[in-house]
């Protein structure tokens, strides 16, 4: 099931790419069908996961490179636990959203949707790999579709941004590869399940702290952590809407997931020593990101920088090393994916109509597009942590989890919430409120089904998680418990 789900988009991508030119218009329908099948599978797994059962479920294991031919074993090993399963669901959900918001792509649609589906496979693979080598391969596979999607279908300095993204990630990947190899050779296995059961590494070729640092560089770039973040605003801004959604919604979470799954699970001793250091970088990211966000004049850059700030909460919660903080960090990944995904969708809808993202040029849009304004306001309020919407739950859990460990740094993090209210509300005030501008006289609201369905679905889930967080929180808690017990 898990393997089928992971590779089904890849098969779909091949099918989409092989469509005859005359049937080009089918590409989006085919992509939608594929992403819906994957979403259905993901939801089925979510429902079927036994919350009282084994940690990793739906495991598919096959030996790939056996120890008979090499001094190590690499396995094709897929499986999910409480930490990865919600992220798999999030991926499947946002991939469907991404297909819908790309409905009007006219430039080479077959290629576009094919790359989008390849991207989905790589993301699902990252979250369900239980073998370090396989994890690394999926982690790298994502670069290829991302490069093409940004550089061909992007806007602005798209080639520059695409390269910047690839090189930044690749820089981190080199460190990660070293870290993974060092871990694998020291432990004699690449199986994450075995690695996390092991005691401290004794015969490490490289000291554990160095491995930890190497992995942190890779994941710190992805998350991102200031000062490794400057690829993010460029890539988010110049990517097409759907890719911004995936980028902010899912790709950043590879960083947070990697930190929890690899750094913390496998090297808990180092994590304990690094706690304060991580919290300090988290607070730096939160405040620095939020302050820089305040000055952004481009809607997409504004949301991109706000992601830097919001992903700081993931690191902050993680740095607490306890169940509450780790659950908060995981929740923050999930809710940020929903909220920022929705924000990017809405900005895309604005841009489709106005062909500008410059905040000073936009004004009074609520008169022309009340639906877009309303949904954007809901997403913005969720982003600034309004209770009853998803963002509040995760941020508050992070704060509650971190405060006992790092009081001052947590309070600094709390201040980010005020700054978030500032940049969100000033944006809403300038872009949507105010006198109707004659320049935007002719534009219309978002009424098409492929605009309404994904946005309403996102709003519904944001509300659901905000009002009844236990739907995903219980699962995340189960997922982080083994990590917390190793750290504790």
């Amino acid at each position, binding site marked *: 099931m898990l393997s089928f789900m992971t590779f089904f988009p890849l098969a779909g991508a091949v099918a989409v790419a092989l469509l005859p030119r005359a049937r080009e218009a089918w590409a989006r329908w085919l992509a939608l069908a594929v992403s819906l099948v994957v979403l259905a599978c993901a939801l089925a797994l979510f429902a079927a996961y036994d919350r009282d059962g084994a940690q990793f479920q739906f495991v598919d294991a096959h030996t790939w490179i056996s120890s008979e031919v090499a001094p190590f074993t690499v396995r094709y090993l897929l499986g999910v636990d409480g930490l990865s399963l919600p992220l798999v669901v999030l991926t499947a959900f946002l991939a469907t959203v991404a297909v819908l918001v790309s409905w009007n792509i006219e430039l080479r649609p077959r290629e576009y949707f094919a790359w989008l589906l390849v991207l989905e496979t790589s993301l699902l693979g990252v979250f369900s790999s239980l073998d370090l080598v396989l994890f690394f391969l999926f982690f790298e596979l994502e670069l290829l579709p991302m490069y093409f999607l940004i550089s061909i279908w992007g806007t602005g300095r798209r080639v520059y941004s695409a390269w*910047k993204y*690839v*090189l*930044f990630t*690749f820089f981190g990947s*080199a460190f990660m*590869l*070293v870290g993974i*190899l*060092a871990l694998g*050779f020291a432990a004699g296995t690449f199986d994450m399940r075995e690695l996390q059961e092991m005691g401290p590494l004794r015969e490490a*070729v*490289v*000291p554990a702290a*160095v491995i930890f640092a190497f992995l942190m560089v890779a994941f710190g770039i992805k998350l991102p952590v200031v*000062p490794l973040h*400057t690829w993010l605003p460029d890539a988010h801004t110049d990517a097409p809407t759907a890719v911004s959604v995936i980028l902010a919604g899912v790709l950043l979470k590879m960083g947070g997931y990697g930190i929890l799954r690899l750094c913390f699970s496998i090297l808990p001793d180092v994590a304990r020593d690094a706690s304060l250091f991580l919290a300090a970088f988290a607070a730096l990211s939160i405040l*620095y990101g939020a*302050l*820089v966000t*305040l*000055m952004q004049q481009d809607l997409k850059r504004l949301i991109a920088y706000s992601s830097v700030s919001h992903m700081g909460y993931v690191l902050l919660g993680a740095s607490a090393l*306890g*169940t*509450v903080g780790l*659950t908060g960090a995981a929740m923050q990944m999930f809710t940020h994916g929903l909220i920022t995904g929705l924000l990017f969708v809405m900005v895309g809808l604005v841009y489709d109509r106005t062909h500008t993202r410059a905040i000073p040029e936009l004004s*009074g849009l*609520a*008169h022309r597009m*009340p639906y877009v304004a309303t949904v954007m306001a809901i997403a913005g309020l969720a982003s600034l942590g*309004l*209770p*009853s919407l998803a963002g*509040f739950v995760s941020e508050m*859990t992070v704060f*509650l989890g971190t*405060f*006992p460990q790092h*009081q001052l740094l*947590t*309070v600094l993090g*709390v201040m980010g*919430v*005020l700054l978030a*209210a*500032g940049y969100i*509300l*000033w944006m809403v*005030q300038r872009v949507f*409120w*105010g*006198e*109707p501008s004659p320049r935007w006289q002719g534009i219309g*609201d978002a*009424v098409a089904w492929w605009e*309404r369905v994904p946005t309403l679905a996102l709003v519904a889930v944001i509300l659901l998680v905000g009002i009844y*967080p*236990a739907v995903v*929180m219980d699962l995340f*808690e189960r997922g982080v418990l083994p990590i917390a017990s190793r750290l504790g």
Partner: protein
Amino acid sequence: MFDPIPEAAAWAIVLLPLGSFAVIALASLLSSSGVRLWRPAWSGYLTILAIAAALGLSIWALDSAIQNDGHAVGFAPHEWVTVGPLTVDIGFRLDGLSALMLVVVTGVSLMVQVYSQGYMAGDPGYSRYFAFMSLFTGAMLGLVSASNILQLFVFWEMVGLCSYLLIGFWFYRDSARRAATKAFLVTRLGDLGLISAILLIWWQTGELDIARIHELVLGGAVAGSVVAFFAGGVFAGAAGKSAQFPLHVWLPDAMEGPTPVSALIHAATMVAAGVYLVARLFPAYALAEEAIATVAVIGAVTALMSALLGVVMTDIKRVLAYSTISQLGYMMAGLGSFAFAPAIFHLFTHAFFKALLFLGSGSVNHATGTFDMRRMGGLARHMPVTFATMTVGALALVGLFPFAGFWSKDEVLAVAWDERPVVFWALLVGVFLTALYVGRMLFLTFGGQYRSGEAGEHGHAPAHPHESPLVMLLPMVLLAGLAATAGFTNLGHGVEHLLAGALPAEGEELAAEPHFRFGIAAASMAVGLAGLAVAWVVYGLQAVSADAVARALAPLHRLLERNYYLDDLYEGVITGRLVLAGVAQGLHLWDRYVVDGVVNGIAQAAREAADRLRLAQAGQPQVYGAAVALGVVLATVIVLLANP
């Protein structure tokens, strides 16, 4: 009188208005998708229906609380979220304090919604207005009935959201959108303290349930310094919400919202939430000497300072806004002087007469098209009902016998006399200033000759002001009845008894026992009458020119008109110069040129190196492949080097 209210019925008080919001929101969504089944008028009816039902249930709840001597009616909490050691429950806290608040909120809200039928008639945002009003009422009811501090905070933020949305209701106006954002940000600044306090208390006690926190605090299980910081942090949030100095600056601007919104949210209920919060956590304050002294001082300073501002405002709603701030200061000063029950009793009476005064100002605006008192005058003849009801409200505000404000204000003063004499004298001066601005408002609005009005909220400038329609007058008359009589409810100390029951048993003696003192009552009456007399001389008889007084006190007058230059300080200097132009802009440039500059510099150097390498290669995929190979080699080398 009735059977005790079941828990489901208690929850319905909160859920009915929230349900009304949900229905209107979904109906509006359907309308915007082309399914036009819903008529805007239904939004108003549904809201009124839901709130009327909530009022009925609230009275039932109050009855249950009275039968229980104000002690908590034990509804068991329900689990909401559990993560490791963190458990968040939600529960319905029904005791004397919350029951009284339920009745105040639903009662005033119902009056305001009825009034809005007339006031908002024909507004294009009619449905949106009632949706937000429903949401606000539900959230406010949720706030006062929350048994858990995190649950309370959820509703606390939601009422703030509604306030934001309703201040900015006419979102196309520049002043409205600015005021809305300002209100949200200033209150959220205070909320940083509240959040920190919640984190602190959870860290130290592992509890978020308010009753459990009280048990631990009163049982001495929490260090004194922790209690002090907790109470102080909570007060920062309360001061933001209740517009206490120095966080009061958002409330006058909030008058940009429709007037019924000002009456409900920015006079009677939401702004009193801060007072309610301090009262809810009173045991913690009573044990933290520094914290409760701060409450008293801030309250007294606020009461005085803003009463002074009320004297110079020319916009009738701004006079009332500063009056509200001042009265909230009275309540805070009362709580800070251990006058637990009197402060809440004052909240109770104030809700009626201040809502009435705002509705009256809306009625005046409806007739004249302006809020500028310089353009009013002589309205007593044209609008007799508005005049009569507003006079009742005004006398209640001044605190003249036998109107409601007399009883509650007097109790606050009496306790302050015993506990904190300095606060008492400040509040007594405040009574004079209150009478002065109230008298000024009445004489400018209703006395003399009509001064033409202007096009206002509803865009018409009538030559002849006319009395408002019955649907607006009826709620005003009912509220006037309450403003005249609500004070008698405590004649047998019934209200105090009810409120005192809400305190935990071990904490009951922490609150001061109020006594009626004839001397204090007479003094405050005399001071109030003196204030009215001065107003009459200056604005009624015009024996002394107000302009001449203003000129004579020019520096003070200017200081007051500019709100002590606090807006300039906050918006111009701190937000504008320091945070935005200074730190944020600095970091923005740093990010762009230094951090990203380093990255691009490295990339540039690498590209130059790669250009030479590329001579042997053909295109980009090869570069990528070469880079992969390079990375693997690099990694292997590092591993080998580290493992000689």
